[in-house]
């Protein structure tokens, strides 16, 4: 297979409401990624864009609208999506653009401006539910998370308190991130004292709605070696979609994440993920999701992630740092851009450039993962220094 490297990364601040338009946010991130690689737009062969539902930006055919903001003027351009899994998937899309031999460089841009949607961006989520069998019940997005979290807790016998520690860790990690929306020093008590949105989900266990964009620049081996002496290689990509009939599945374990992970691990030649991966950016839109996903990623035995968390394994200086960026809980959650932020974090961590967030011990390989739709999609990317 043709090797592909990440050679640049950049992102905007993640903020509750941005002055910039969706196009401008895309442009800021794309430009930052290009600048970081000291490359110009005319060196970019093609552009890949990722956003989740059009309802947030408030534009039908949003991909077309965003195209020039992403730098796709007069270029081959695809917009891909798999709901919340889009941010990590988009890199896989860029990967095969280059691995196919059709292109040598690809700019991958993810953007979301949720604040455009009034009266509240969350209302747009009503339209992700089945139009005939579910929407008439007026479901809130929080429902599915609460239903899944309750299932996870009850099958394994965990409490809300066990889960709340994820919020504490990630919001603390985010204090070192210049783009972060919700970095904070909190205790488990604070999290449990926060408003119950949809039991067992408390407000501080939920990532915020955000505006923001993030981008990476991908290059073939030949180009990568020419433009940087610190390329970060895409070692594996995987994605997997489960049945739409989510009420017919047991939500306690994400099979689709496991399948996506093994697809990526096989490609990366990984047999024992827990030994061969140095850091992880699992998807954490809600606190329990990080634990749920670490199990799916085979980085914790089934039902054991909360124990490892309590033991400090996932702390920045632990055996397997998870969400050293601060995750969606700390940095913010402009859907697709949040997944891309995780890939940016791997890039900086693996290059040793993460400053105050740098995990110790010169990590050599990391995995990022996102999730989406009706608890249905797993997307996984493995990156490493060789």
């Amino acid at each position, binding site marked *: 297979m043709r090797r592909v490297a990440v050679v640049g990364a950049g992102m905007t601040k993640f903020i509750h409401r941005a002055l910039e338009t969706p196009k401008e946010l895309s442009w800021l991130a794309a430009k930052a990624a290009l600048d970081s690689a000291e490359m110009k737009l005319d060196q970019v062969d093609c552009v890949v864009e990722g956003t989740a539902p059009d309802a947030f930006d*408030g534009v*039908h055919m949003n991909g077309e*609208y965003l195209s*020039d903001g992403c730098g796709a003027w007069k270029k081959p351009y695809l917009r891909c999506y798999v709901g919340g899994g889009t941010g990590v998937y988009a890199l896989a899309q860029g990967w095969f653009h280059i691995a196919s*031999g059709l292109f040598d460089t690809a700019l991958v841009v993810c953007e979301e401006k949720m604040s455009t949607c009034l009266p509240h961006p969350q209302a747009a989520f009503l339209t992700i539910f089945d139009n005939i069998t579910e929407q008439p019940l007026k479901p809130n997005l929080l429902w599915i998370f609460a239903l899944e979290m309750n299932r996870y807790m009850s099958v394994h016998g965990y409490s809300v308190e066990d889960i709340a520690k994820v919020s504490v860790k990630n919001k603390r990690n985010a204090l070192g991130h210049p783009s972060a929306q919700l970095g904070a020093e909190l205790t488990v008590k604070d999290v449990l004292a926060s408003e119950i949105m949809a039991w067992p989900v408390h407000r501080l266990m939920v990532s915020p709605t955000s505006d923001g964009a993030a981008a990476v620049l991908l290059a073939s081996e030949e180009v990568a070696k020419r433009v940087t002496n610190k390329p970060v290689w895409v070692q594996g990509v995987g994605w997997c979609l489960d049945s739409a009939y989510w009420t017919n599945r047991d939500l306690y374990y994400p099979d689709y994440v496991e399948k996506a992970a093994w697809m990526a691990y096989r490609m990366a030649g990984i047999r024992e993920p827990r030994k061969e991966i140095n850091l992880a950016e699992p998807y954490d839109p809600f606190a329990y999701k990080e634990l749920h996903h670490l199990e799916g990623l085979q980085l914790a035995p089934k039902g054991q992630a909360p124990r490892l968390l309590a033991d400090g394994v996932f702390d920045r200086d632990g055996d397997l740092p998870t969400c050293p960026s601060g995750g969606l809980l700390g940095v913010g959650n402009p859907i697709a851009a949040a997944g891309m932020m995780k890939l940016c974090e791997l890039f900086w961590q693996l290059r040793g450039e993460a400053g105050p967030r740098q995990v110790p011990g010169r990590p050599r390989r990391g995995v990022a993962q996102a999730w989406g739709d009706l608890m249905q999609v797993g997307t996984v990317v493995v990156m490493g220094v060789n």
Partner: protein
Amino acid sequence: MNGRVGIIGIGYTAAQPTTPYSSFKELMFEAAQRAYFDAGIDAAEVESFVTCAEDLNTGLSIFDEYTPDQLGAVQKPMHTLTQDGLHGIADAVMQIKSGLVEVVAVEAHSKASNILTPDWILDYAVDPIFNRPLGFNPHALAGLEMNLFLHETGITPQQVSQVAAKNRTNALRNPLAAYPARLTADDTAAGPYAHYPLRETEMAQTADGCVVVVLASDDKARAAASQPLWVRGIGFANDSPTLESRDWVHAEYTRIAAQMAYRMAGITNPAREIDFFEVDDTYAYKELQHLIALGLYPNRPGEAGRALEQGLTRPDGKTPVNVSGGCLGLGWTLEASGLYRIVELVLQLRGQAGPRQLPGAKMGLAQSWRGVPTTSGAVAILSSEQKPWE
């Protein structure tokens, strides 16, 4: 480039003005079953799936949620593109060429009849700050473009009416077509203006339908049940989405996409080397604009109109265009439009096109545009023969 890619199966429903007895899932299931049967494979042998859909056209946000079950894609790699089916073909070609997978299914469908407010939804695609507040019907953008296009190229309104008549008439020979009609240019020219100089009769009407296409690597394609058609070239591109800074005369998105596809296919003289064309004709003038962008009339764009008048683009002409009936005759099936063009290419190249079969067709080209207000297009070139040097 590493390895050829072939189309090994197609499955489709007829395009119809309405499909009240089937849900979109049931339409997709039918097309998928037919496609896998045509390819002689089980659904389980498909390694990756691509669906092409816009949320607002389906009425569901994050539409990819609702795709896996009826395609046999449960717990498989699947992703959605918010683009035309031809973009989906390009996506599948890249996945296979990368060496990641060997068999990919591409799906697109239309349930346009379920959209009660189509013009308002299209309005929602117009720039929300600069243009939407002006309150014009988005189809008027086609009128704007057509006016300048005619002015700059010397193509006449009469010639545009002739495109509509030709394609509606071609559809009479296509059992998949939703809007066949025996029309003359005088008939279509008698239609009222919708957005001057664009007439109602020169605008495609939407139709429902679904297409699934199965692509495979060289090895798998050679072992397939049906005759594989080789993807010789693929290209896609965007021009400016901004109305204020785009090229209104030339379909730049198509020119760039075609250059990419021709380079890959080693084609230098498309008019001579390609036997027939299925191009976007959502608005009748677009057929001519797209043929020009495909490089068929390199010296003078006005020749596009004269070639039409001389019957060169009729099924019995030198360069048949939209033998299927195009969007005007078959129906505008939104994201599925490009895949219906692929269906026509495959049927013609296999010699299965029945009463509209073109004799000796060996290579065909499909081109798509995503409609107003976009400047997004794609091109695919299929052939029954492999490249001589491959």
